[in-house]
């Protein structure tokens, strides 16, 4: 409290009266993001320039206060939530597109620029920014960098880190680090790669140099409709086996697509058990050939029907259903927990059956919608937060699902990040030596632990049962640390 009283007037002097939020209501409004975790910050600040970010970090250091960087707050793992108080540093008033160099396929933006806004601004040039998380009409590029966001087109084009070539980062002590540059591959350590996906634990990004990609000459979008989920699952690996990499390969199960259809009228048949949304991009001839091949594979694997979008409007509708799917779930249940897990694409069928069994055991409804092509699952666990114990039940089911993913050779997160949601699950996929190495790295940038504390790396404060249950051999290490 003492520290806060001391820093507040200095921040106000620095950022002006509308640059600092300190009242009870304002702080309450920054206790959430797009997920289920909550934590109220002590202050929220809104710098407008890199210099102001530097000054804020220096003040925070002087007063020994934590800094939690935040973009639009659409994340799903509590990355932008103040776990143990501290100052939320909101970057959404820094939203200038600093430069666009189409001839070099680069743009330089401030972190608060909205993902879709960049592509819209340069739409006349024939280029775009590839990463397309479902929240792209609201989420910021700074947030994409922090979480190393993906999206449906990750399958062919890679995640955010593959589209960022340089960063300007303010470190915990206010020093400025510039990584990468205009050249696609710079000598020395890949600090850009290190920063992307570090979830605000290593520094605060104040400028991002992104790669722009030429729009494909032709795009074809297919909807394959199935009466059995297993057949849809089999199709996923069959397409890869046929030697084709679609730009996107998405799957929605029957329960989910019916809810989506009620919201968006995307054109998914209500009586189907699952649909695959498949997008092929490339040169005219190649696209026609691949589309025909994919259609044949789908039919062979047991698709009831395969439709091709006739025009841009129909294509837009098919995608609107997928992109708005999470939001549409609010129509059928007051609360749901969006999971994010990864499995090898050959294991989609068995894992889906396993997820269904987990839901049945706990009496919870679970829907599935996911990036099937790269095995990135998004099970939706539905619950009613008004009923005592339901959230905990949903969390337990979610943990079980993640364990299932790991057992099948997968990972605990594909694109939503670890945040405060899954930090305690990290031991499921990393050895203690791996984690120690990450801690050393963090120590180098964030020695006092004031940058986004309590995120990404396990603190072993809670839920050690989870780690113990799955990796009993860790027991001793954990005991030793507490």
């Amino acid at each position, binding site marked *: 409290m003492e520290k806060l009283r001391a820093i507040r007037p200095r921040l106000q002097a620095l950022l002006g009266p509308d640059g600092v939020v300190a009242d009870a209501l304002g702080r309450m409004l920054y206790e959430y*993001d797009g997920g*289920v975790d909550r934590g109220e910050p002590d202050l929220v600040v809104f710098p407008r320039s890199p210099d102001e970010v530097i000054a804020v970090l220096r003040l925070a250091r002087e007063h020994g206060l934590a800094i939690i960087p935040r973009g639009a707050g659409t994340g799903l793992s509590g990355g932008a939530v103040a776990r143990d108080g501290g100052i939320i540093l909101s970057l959404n008033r820094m939203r200038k597109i600093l430069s666009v160099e189409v001839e070099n396929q680069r743009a330089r933006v401030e972190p608060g620029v909205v993902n879709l806004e960049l592509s819209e601004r340069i739409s006349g040039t024939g280029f775009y920014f590839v990463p397309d998380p479902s929240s792209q009409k609201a989420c910021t590029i700074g947030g994409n960098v922090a979480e190393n966001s993906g999206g449906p087109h990750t399958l062919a084009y890679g995640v955010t880190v593959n589209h960022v070539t340089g960063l300007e980062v303010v470190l915990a002590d206010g020093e400025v680090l510039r990584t990468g540059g205009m050249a696609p591959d710079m000598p020395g350590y890949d600090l850009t790669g290190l920063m992307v996906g570090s979830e605000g634990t290593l520094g605060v990004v104040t400028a991002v140099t992104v790669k722009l990609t030429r729009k494909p000459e032709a795009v074809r979008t297919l909807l394959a409709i199935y009466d059995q989920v297993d057949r849809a699952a089999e199709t996923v690996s069959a397409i890869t086996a046929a030697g084709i990499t679609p730009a996107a390969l998405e799957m929605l199960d029957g329960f989910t697509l019916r809810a989506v259809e009620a919201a968006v009228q995307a054109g998914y048949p209500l009586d189907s058990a699952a649909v695959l949304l498949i997008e092929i991009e490339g040169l005219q001839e190649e696209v026609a050939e691949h589309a025909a091949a994919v259609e044949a594979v789908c039919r062979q694997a047991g698709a009831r029907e395969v439709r091709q979008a006739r025009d841009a409007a129909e294509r837009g509708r098919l995608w609107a259903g997928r992109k708005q799917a999470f939001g549409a779930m609010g129509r059928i249940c007051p609360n749901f927990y969006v999971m994010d897990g990864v499995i090898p694409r050959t294991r989609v069928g068995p894992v889906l059956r396993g997820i269904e069994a987990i839901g049945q055991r706990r009496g919870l409804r679970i829907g599935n919608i996911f990036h099937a092509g790269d095995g990135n699952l998004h099970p939706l666990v539905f619950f009613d937060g*008004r009923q005592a114990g339901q959230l905990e039940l949903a969390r337990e089911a979610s943990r079980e699902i993640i364990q299932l993913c790991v057992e099948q050779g997968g990972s605990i997160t594909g694109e939503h990040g670890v945040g405060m949601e899954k930090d305690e699950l990290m031991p499921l996929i990393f050895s203690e030596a791996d984690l120690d190495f990450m801690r050393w790295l963090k120590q180098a940038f964030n020695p006092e632990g004031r940058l986004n504390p309590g995120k990404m790396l396990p603190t072993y404060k809670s839920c050690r049962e989870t780690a113990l249950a799955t990796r009993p051999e860790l027991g001793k290490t954990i005991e030793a640390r507490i």
Partner: protein
Amino acid sequence: MSVAETTPPAGTSRSAFHTADRPRWEDYSRCIHCGLCLEACPTFRLLGEEMDSPRGRIYQIAQADAGRLPLAGAFETHIGRCLDCRACQTACPSGVEYGKILERARAELAAQREVRGPKAWLANYVFRRLLPDPKAMARQARLLRWYQRGGARAVARATGALRLLGLAQAESLAPEVEGEFFRAEMGRTFPALGPRRARVAFLAGCVQRVAFAGMNRATLRVLQAAGCEVVIPAAQTCCGALHVHAGRRAEARELARTNIQAFAGFDAVVTNSAGCGSALKEYGDLLENDAAAEEFAGRVRDATELLAALGLPAGMLRPLPWKVTYQDPCHLAHGQRIRSAPRQLMAAIPELELVEMVRADSCCGSAGIYNVVQPEIAGRLLDEKMATVRATRAATIVTANPGCMLQLRAGIRRSGAADRVMHVMELLDAALEPGAAENPAAKPE
């Protein structure tokens, strides 16, 4: 993992809401705070704060219902800053009916707030006496006309007296009172030109009767030319939209009941005001569990909606080689989900060029009486709007709501971004073939 409460227990004894018009859990709990509404919200885009975003306002309402927030102070500020433009409803994948939630929160605020003094007296006068009473409206309008034309305005503007009284913004937004009010037409029937294709009742509007009489007459001519017989029931009154926005739901209900009776028995109730139309279509929610209200709401049509569905007869319109841009009224595009009808009608005018502005469906800042009560934010939104208008190089801004027209006119006066503002009906009227362009003798109802 930290355990969090996702939905606090609502409607408990700790709730800050007390009346029957309280925001309902069934409505606000649909919001899953995914944030997809953020960039659609004009106040969030402008201010960049969660408190002034749709999900933030819903969160505040949910917390107030759970007893975590008092209604006074900051809550009132942020709920008051909302334009109620409903752009978030268009963006929302969960189908959250934000307008309902917000208007109910405002009703709670209005019920719990004790305002006294001249401000309260003025509000009561406007909402209870002026808007529902065409005679009182005409009296005030004559005074305003005297002010606008008799030289008093010139004196007031020149001496800076308005700024001194804090009235400069309101004064610049006041409608130009027209010479002849829309009064003789009340209670009359206007026949269809050519074969009759529909029989509709027309809502004349409270402000429109004194300030938009010309626009009303243009609407009549266009409807007639399109084959509509138009009846203007004399017993109609103000739609109550402004009352609902201000949280005065009891008064709005009285007006709604009067209108439901006045418009009984017509196939369609037509309005040229998107704001009024939106309110009329929501009578079912205002008068809960009232079958007549539901039935009435189902018959309401925006004039553009009706005409686009009916189709314009061949040869009705002559070429108009103008360059125009279209501003979607919030209560048409977001409130009623009508976007293509007005564009379809404009496309029917030969040689007319429609140049779309960026973010045509983003609020201009008018928002009912928002530009009067929140002049600073409304002014900034208007400046942004004028910049996008200027980029189209169109001389005419076309829209479909009187409130937007006032705000846009104030915008072009101070920015010079365009030459004039017209209603879609006025544009169609200007394109009517001669012969279809006059109101033939009206017969009494």
